[in-house]
């Protein structure tokens, strides 16, 4: 077999030949061979701009969505090596694969951002985490959850990592006040034994950090939620990773008010910050109403 074409070239030639003919049919949408080729080119250029070169390994943890195909052929066009792996894999399995192939980047679903964040320190080669899709989900319940949000200047913390760590410490101290012995798993998970009791997500926008922390005060019954959202098994499996709550650990469920008091004490002792109760200002109220209207739509 002479003249073996690389996989990137294979797509390129087919796109020249097929042009506007449909390549991908997905969710009532159609993507032509030319569009497929151009999207692969954009990924190749994008990866190149992140410093990914020929021969580098790029991991992919994606279901069968068009982005899988764009990413796969983008990697091929760059002459890099695609490492697609099972979306059902858990932290320990993912660490093994990423380290074994020394992946420099991973392309995955936004849902898995927390999972990848948690293991990032265990994978020294991993420089870039590239996220796609808006499929994140948060379940809240009066019997179970309390959510803490912080909107602060970026300069409040040395780095994103530091924000995760400090907030983790605050949550641990708060839980300790209720008699729960929790520990911080880097970037995102607060656990009790092997079970998750709180999740932290740190996002950035312009010069601000938006920190979300959901803590379980009582057991979260998820059956009702899964009647309402259809979730693929691998994502459900991760949403459903073993969880616990203050009530399950201590026999008592604190109120949201009690939680707030302990949290403010921890904020004071960990960061030397006191918080005074206030309300949204006029400009903020406008934004609040606007977002609520958008959130309720659809």
């Amino acid at each position, binding site marked *: *077999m002479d003249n073996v*074409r690389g996989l990137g070239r294979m797509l390129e030639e087919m796109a020249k030949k097929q042009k506007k003919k449909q390549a991908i049919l997905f969710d009532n949408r159609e993507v032509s061979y030319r569009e497929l080729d151009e999207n692969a080119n954009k990924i190749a250029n994008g990866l190149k701009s992140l410093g990914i070169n020929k021969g580098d390994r790029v991991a992919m943890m994606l279901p069968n969505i068009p982005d899988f195909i764009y990413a796969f052929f983008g990697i091929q*066009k760059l002459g890099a090596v*695609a490492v697609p792996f099972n979306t059902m894999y858990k932290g320990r399995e993912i660490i093994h694969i990423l380290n074994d192939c020394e992946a420099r980047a991973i392309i995955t679903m936004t849902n898995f951002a927390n999972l990848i964040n948690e293991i990032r320190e265990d994978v020294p080669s991993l420089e870039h985490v590239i996220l796609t899709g808006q*499929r994140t989900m948060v379940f809240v319940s009066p019997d179970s*959850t309390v959510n803490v949000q912080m909107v602060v200047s970026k300069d409040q913390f040395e780095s994103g990592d530091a924000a995760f760590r400090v907030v983790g410490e605050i949550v641990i101290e708060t839980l300790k006040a209720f008699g729960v012995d929790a520990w911080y798993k880097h970037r995102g998970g607060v656990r009790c034994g092997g079970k998750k009791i709180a999740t932290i997500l740190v996002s950035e926008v312009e010069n601000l950090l938006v920190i979300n922390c959901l803590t379980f005060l009582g057991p979260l019954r998820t059956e009702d939620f899964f009647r*309402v959202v259809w979730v693929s098994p691998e994502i459900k499996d991760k949403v459903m990773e073993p969880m616990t709550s203050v009530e399950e650990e201590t026999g008592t469920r604190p109120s949201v008010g009690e939680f707030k008091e302990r949290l403010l004490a921890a904020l004071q002792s960990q960061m030397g910050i006191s918080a*005074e109760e206030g309300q949204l200002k006029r400009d903020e109220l406008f934004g609040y109403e606007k977002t609520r209207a958008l959130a309720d739509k659809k």
Partner: protein
Amino acid sequence: MSEKWRLIFNPDGDAADMVAYASALVEGRIAGKYMLSTEKLPNTIVVQGVKQKGILAGADVDINKDTAARYNIKVANYPRSGRGGPKPVGTVNLSDLLKTSSRKFNAVETDPDAPAVLLYTSGTTGRPKGVTLTHRNFAQQCLNVSKVLPLNESDTIVLVLPLFHVYGLSNGLISGVYFGTKMTLVPQYSPAKLLEAVEATKATVLIAVPTMYMHVLQAAKTRKTSIPKSLRLCVSGGAPLPLTTLREFEEAFQTRIAEGYGLTETTSSVCLNKSGEAFKPGSIGPAAEGVEMRVVDDDDNEVADGQEGEIVIRSGVVTPGYWNNPEATAESIRDGWLHTGDLGYRDSDGFFFITDRKKDLIIRGGFNISPREIEELLFSHPKVRDAAVIAVQDKREREAVKAFVVLEDGETATEREILDYCSENLAEYKVPKIVEFRDSLPKSATGKILRKELREGYHDDRLLEKAGADTKEQQHG
């Protein structure tokens, strides 16, 4: 002097508040930065409870609003974030990357023997190994397919198998592009969704695994509307397809199913048993053009037709080896022949039959599971002294994992405790279905666990009895 933040306490909010407060605070601060407002807004902490169950969902999440209303669940959506919206710290948005990058790029020249893809697969020796597949491997696979099962530009192929698995990637996606077909993407498999996709896109080619054919057939039978008849060709692989299912499916969909056999190490299929042509029940077919297949004894000598041995393969589709693992490569590929670990024989017509597995591998739904990997995880549990893992059959006659556990002296543990530990660390399909506690495990004189003695009435999922294909068929029917 201690720093002061503003606290907003909202104990009786709802799911929409969670996105609305964050967004209001962000917008207020950014507006302040651009001097639209003179007021300097402080760092803020919001503590929120909810008075009603709720889901806060990304724009792409599929939600049934009617069911939500019935169960009194408040649904709130994150507004679709444009470029520059909040993103998890230290990450890149793929959509940003797409928007800012040029759509022109010429594929770089690649060495045909350079790796294109690494696919991690479990063997018997613990953690998954990376199978290196080169551009040449894929080109050869496409060439082989063009000889035995050519597709063409007017075909529409259904991509329902996961693309991270060799079967869906090589025989689905890459074949699809090689032949210039349309490709129907099914991101989330359910029999109804697959059936809908076939119908909506008038698909002509389906590649799937046996359980999918069984389920889709069931779903089609109970449907009131007509069964789509557009499929001209189907391929089944990963496990044997019961003959009754094959026949019924062909009849109902007016199509043909070819059964394939292949490994990650061979860039997917290496032989095909084509129904309607020279078809032999229970066989994996003859070797495809471009593939040499033999049956050998323990000393790598070829055995006579009809005699059982290990199936070995030589072809341009065979991997050059495992990533960073010369030992495993040397053990698996000897004199250019890939040793599959599958035992079988060849009949006088050149058709191959699989009879057993040489290695202690468990295969569930086409995914390899290494008993060793699960045993090693169990060893790492502080209460576990010894452990062994074997394959058993579940209710649907698929292979499932069973663990035997010996606890440290004086320790007690529940099955749940062991299973939770596995769930935390392993993909769900690898998590044991049963845990049996034992005082000790059967071992050989050299200390090797005798897995065979742990098996009771166990038989191989891929095993089609030499003469017993009909018996198996009745079990399924």
